[in-house]
């Protein structure tokens, strides 16, 4: 036993753990940017849908909002939601091949592993958002600068519950059921939230129910970009409650998963 190794025991390595976590994140990002299929499917679909719908209804508007802006917000919320949940979904894949067990016998802390998957989800979500913004600008969709910023900020906040959802499912489902589950759940959220077009109208009980969904507020982030004002209190509350509940579910799923053989 070398004296150096004894030192590891006694001396805390706070700086070391942070660096290790960052190093790990770097490779998680390298991996995702190498996965071309992932980008084609998660970024390609929203982009194509946006270009087709917004491009063919160039001058139309919905509820006074130009379609190229309205549909932008829908596709941004759907695309970024997919990206963020699939970050957690990757956990399922790494579990299935036994890679998470291998990582659990290295010094990488569990929080760093999960944080890395969340950041990875957010980075791919940002790529999706930027690609859609570029398409929108190319079609002359017009927003004030602070409108763009408010919209982007609110989308990033509104993605938090979906990041937690991805981790929960990643620790609960096997990869063969995870794909359909993630696709189905995010499609349902997107549909009800109005990402593909308004389905709840301007008022009524159905709208009140839909307003309890985090995806509704994700779509509304786009409207906030137009009005250049943030969500009402209700929006913040809905997003916070969903984040708390799904975050708790993620912690539970993680503990159940790792306590097992």
């Amino acid at each position, binding site marked *: *036993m*070398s004296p*150096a*190794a*004894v*030192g*590891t*025991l*006694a*001396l805390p*390595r706070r700086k*070391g753990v942070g*660096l*290790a976590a960052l*190093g*790990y994140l770097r*490779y998680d990002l*390298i*991996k995702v940017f*190498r*996965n071309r299929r992932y980008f084609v499917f998660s970024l390609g679909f929203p982009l194509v849908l946006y270009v087709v719908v917004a491009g063919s209804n160039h001058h139309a508007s919905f509820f006074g909002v130009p379609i190229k802006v309205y549909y932008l917000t829908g596709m941004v919320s759907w695309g970024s939601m997919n990206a963020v949940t699939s970050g957690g979904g990757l956990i399922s894949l*790494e579990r299935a*091949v*036994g*890679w998470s*067990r*291998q990582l*659990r*016998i*290295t*010094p*990488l*802390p569990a929080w760093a592993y999960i944080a890395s998957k969340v950041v990875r989800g957010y980075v791919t979500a940002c790529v999706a958002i930027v690609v859609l913004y570029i398409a929108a600008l190319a079609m002359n969709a017009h927003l004030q600068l602070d409108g763009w910023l408010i919209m982007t900020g609110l989308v990033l906040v509104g993605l938090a519950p979906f990041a937690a959802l991805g981790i929960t499912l990643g620790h609960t489902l096997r990869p063969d059921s995870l794909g359909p589950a993630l696709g189905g759940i995010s499609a349902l959220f997107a549909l009800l939230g109005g990402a593909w077009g308004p389905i709840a109208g301007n008022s009524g009980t159905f709208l009140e129910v839909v307003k309890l969904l985090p995806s509704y507020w994700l779509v509304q982030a786009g409207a906030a970009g137009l009005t250049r004002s943030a969500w009402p209190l209700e929006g913040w509350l809905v997003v916070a409650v969903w984040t708390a509940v799904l975050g708790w579910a993620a912690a539970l799923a993680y503990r159940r998963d790792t*306590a097992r*053989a």
Partner: protein
Amino acid sequence: MASLADVVGAAQGDIAAHGVVATGLHKAYGPVKALSGVDLEIPAGQTVALLGPNGAGKTTTIDIVLGLLRPDAGEVKVFGLPPGAAVRAGLVGGMLQVGSLVRDMTVRELVSMVGGLYPRPLCVDEVLEATGLLEISGRYTQDLSGGQAQRVRFAIAVVGDPALLVLDEPTVALDVEARREFWASMRGVAARGKTVLFATHYLEEADAFADRVVLMARGRVVADGTPNEVKAKVGTRTIRATLPGPSVAELVALPGVAAAERRGDDVVLQCTDSDLALRALLSRFGEARGIEVRGGSLEEAFVELTSGQPERAGRVGAPA
């Protein structure tokens, strides 16, 4: 309040004395008892083979030592720490029985990534060289052969320069040549004063590479000692000599002899303690000639100790 020096001192003492200390491990999966009271103490620096048939409890024991599994009862300390703390301190490296590598990374990237998680990793190039991976270090992990992937998994286990190296059936599913290569690189990389615990059901591996063999069967340790001690435990050292005179009964009565057999002028003695038996043989029957002492194989010990029969009961005075 203990000073830092005290803590370091205590840790140092622990390390010097114990690599792994497991006491009274019990684990059941539903109605199936995987472990029924396993005690295992591995001094730092020792290489221990955990040997046993499938279902003996080897992997369960290893998973508990690695902190992947919590025992129903009992306790494990790794260098004086709970397994999880030892893992987080970077003291542990391991190769699990099941598990493939993540895709879309090169061999070098993967080994570097894991090394980066440890406080004092080895030089990645050295590890790649020692494990024979240097030429394929740019290849993606999904394009490797089984033997190559296994070597990458080994490189991952050692790159952090852990004080304890745990290998769960590291050569399973490898052909003979790949197995030989594996153990050659194992000697190069891991033999530097590390504590090594490896599970295997290849007897020759335990015999050739371990300082000590812990034989498990049905969730218990059934034998524990150097390979030679484990062999001796089942009376598989044999003495053969040309000795026409004495009867089988006289020979069985010698100290250290478990069974005797006559083959013409020759006698064959199965011994529990061949040294004792040989001395007794020479002093009682000085006319014995052409004496041969042969070690039994670990294979015989293995079959005997894990087959579930009461130890040696049926063998004393066994007929020719």
